């Protein structure tokens, strides 16, 4: 094994273990934070509160998985929040105005998400325009389509089939359905990255595109596919967003991309590409959702929430950076021996 075993006492050993994996750091932070918040506000740990938190976290996590794929290839998809908004609204309109079975409407929603992703990927790879520019444009275009579709009106919960919004809090064997969907998606995409050629190619393109090309990898095909996947996953998140809120406005999910990108980065996917996991991105989403909720249940002054939220993100990422630097120093010392 190349990774040395952490040296020293139990504390050092635990820190060493955490430093090697962003995922473990996040889990540890969430446990510590959960315990502290429960002391101050016991309702934090209640089933109904945790169901609320995890349902929202599941939606963000699914979008973050797609976003993580683009970031791993040294790209970014800023338009994903508009995809979520557009799909959520479209599914609502379909259910309100057409006599389509609910699953069919969902399928249309995911399909539209896929098409939007394909549009992003096509423009980026055919015209070779940086993805940040392309998706900044489609962020507005997709949102513009929602406004046209809405024509000044929103989709109301009462227009939808009875009990539609309850799906968000339904559970199977005590596990919320949304969480099951998110876990299945994270597992599937995680397996793709870990165990398939395509997954390896994603990391190679993000790490060194020139070298990847010389090794016979079609980096543009990889980039295109990643954006298509990000769109489809945005579609899934959009469908779930619609179920969660029931009432959908033309501006729904505006600004959500910041949370999605934050989840990806907090989850340990490096913004310069080539490294990270989707498990990390999903845990990042859960972490952010928990912080959001903790700030609410602790009943801190409203005007402080935004600033504290940002500060907690920075503290978490800095702590992880410190731990992994320490880990690298240990490893280097080990290698010199």
């Amino acid at each position, binding site marked *: *094994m*190349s990774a040395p075993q952490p040296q020293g006492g139990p504390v050092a050993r635990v820190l060493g273990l955490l430093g090697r994996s962003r995922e473990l750091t996040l889990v540890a932070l969430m446990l510590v934070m959960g315990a502290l918040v429960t002391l101050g506000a016991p309702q934090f740990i209640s089933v109904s509160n945790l169901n609320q938190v995890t349902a929202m976290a599941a939606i963000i996590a699914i979008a973050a998985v797609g976003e993580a794929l683009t970031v791993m290839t040294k790209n970014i998809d800023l338009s994903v929040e508009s995809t979520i908004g557009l799909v959520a609204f479209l599914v609502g309109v379909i259910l309100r105005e057409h006599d389509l079975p609910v699953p069919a409407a969902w399928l249309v929603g995911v399909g539209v998400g896929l098409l939007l992703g394909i549009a992003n990927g096509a423009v980026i790879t055919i015209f070779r325009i940086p993805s940040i520019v392309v998706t900044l444009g489609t962020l507005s275009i997709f949102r513009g389509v929602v406004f046209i579709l809405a024509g000044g009106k929103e989709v109301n919960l009462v227009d939808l089939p009875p009990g539609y919004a309850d799906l968000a809090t339904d559970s199977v064997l005590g596990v919320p359905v949304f969480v099951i969907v998110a876990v299945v998606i994270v597992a599937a995409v995680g397996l793709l990255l870990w*165990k*398939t*050629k395509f997954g*390896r*190619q994603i*990391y*190679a393109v993000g*790490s*060194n595109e*020139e*070298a*990847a*090309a*010389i*090794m*016979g*990898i*079609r980096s543009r095909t990889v980039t295109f596919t990643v954006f298509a996947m990000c769109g489809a996953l945005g579609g899934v998140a959009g469908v779930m967003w619609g179920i969660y809120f029931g009432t959908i406005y033309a501006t729904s999910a505006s600004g959500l991309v910041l949370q999605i990108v934050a989840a990806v980065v907090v989850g340990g996917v490096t913004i310069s590409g*080539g*490294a990270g996991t989707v498990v990390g991105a999903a845990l990042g989403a859960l972490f952010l959702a928990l912080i959001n909720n903790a700030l609410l249940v602790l009943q801190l002054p409203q005007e402080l929430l935004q600033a504290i939220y940002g500060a907690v993100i920075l503290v978490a990422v800095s702590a992880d950076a410190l731990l992994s630097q320490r880990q690298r120093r240990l490893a280097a010392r080990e*290698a010199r021996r």
Partner: protein
Amino acid sequence: MTTARLQLTGISKRFAATAALADVSLELLAGEIHALVGENGAGKSTLVKVIAGVHQPDAGEIRLDGELITVPNPAAARERGIAVVHQEPRLFPDLSVAENIFLIAPPTDRFHTISWGEMRRRAAELFEQLDVRIDVAAPVRGLSMADQQLIEIAKALAIEARVLILDEPTASLSSHEVERLFTIVRRTSERGVAVLFVSHRLDEVFELCDRATVFRDGRYVTTAPTSELTTASLVRFMVGREVSLFPKEATTVGAPILEVRNLSDASGFRDVSFTVRAGEILGLAGLVGAGRTEIARVLFGIEPRTAGEVLLDGRPVEFRSPSEALRAGVAYVPEDRHQDGLVLDFSITNNITLPILGRLFPRLFLRARTEVEVATQFSERLRVRMTGVDQAVKALSGGNQQKVVIAKWLAARPRVLILDEPTRGVDIGAKVEVHRIVSELAASGLAIIMISSDLPEVLAMSDRILVLHEGRISEEIPRADATEERVMFAATGQRVQAPAGTGASSVH
């Protein structure tokens, strides 16, 4: 006898284990044009960087007009009136010509803000002195390499340089542009500037320079007036050293694998033809910029060709991407292994299997065990020194990284292997091993093209040597007739006056 304008004495510079410069000296007189010549790796560039303040010498002293100085950084060099013009001009393409010239110290008005009119006027004045017409308000982007070099020279004049260093300035210029450059360099030296002209091109040395200093392997060889030198004596000073460490194994050369006919690309090379056979190592020699790497990039499908044809096993092929070339059995070990050859974040295993994942795993999922087996097999065959195949390649030494790159292509089972500077930057032990591996590969029936600037390497390893000069094949030398002098002559574009003992020149 005047004092030297710039006097370097006993300069030494080491990088890790290699001595780039060992106790070298150089003297530049005011108003003289002085050539610094030597093979690739002789230490010319390192010396230029020491003078320019990019590198600090480990030992030795620098005197400017008799005064002992240190040059801690490039800004200090500029302040002392030392200007360097690099082979590739280093200008800011989006800024105007005038802004580039006065970037560090722009003329200001009484409010201490930049005086644009004054800046343009003074820039125009400089070009008038050089007798060059150029729009000083236009952005640099889009100007020719030659014009950009003149801007660098104008920059030198703007700081009233006492020493002007030209580092391979003619490498990318046409002959007409070279003439114009020489006129301007002469005019500059007549103003009392000491000019150091670093070049590979011996004809230019004789045309332009008053004296020449020769370096070899980081050491000072000699200094002499060019009038007392001949091309032959200069070449002998440049290459005169023991030859050969790594003889290639004798192999039976088989059928032609790769045939190249009248191949040209957009700018790097023209009308190149050659054949490589199974079991053969074809050496591609020539100076940096002669078009060797460009040929490799076209053969591997990275760059398009503009004319000619390529035959693989007798069938015409045209690769539009590296993946097509790989599938047809052509592999390329690029010159810059950090940039192009490896995914540094990946483990040894993941690097080796990356190009062949499709073949190893025709179905959906990868199997870690198979990958490790393949990686272990090839890294052991190449004797990669590692803690294990799961080690990250960025933790390996240069020589071992290069072995991983070669292992990767061996695993892909190519028929044609193109090696671009396979031993640059690796230590001598790893070098010998790489040579042993390349030799074994040829013996196993691969057709190998080896690009190298290392003359002893080319001579020892190649069955035939193709020498390029300015994008054309200047000579094809069979192994038996190859000498360092002969390769160097051809590489510098000199026609061969067949030395006694060898036959007539054999251009096929």
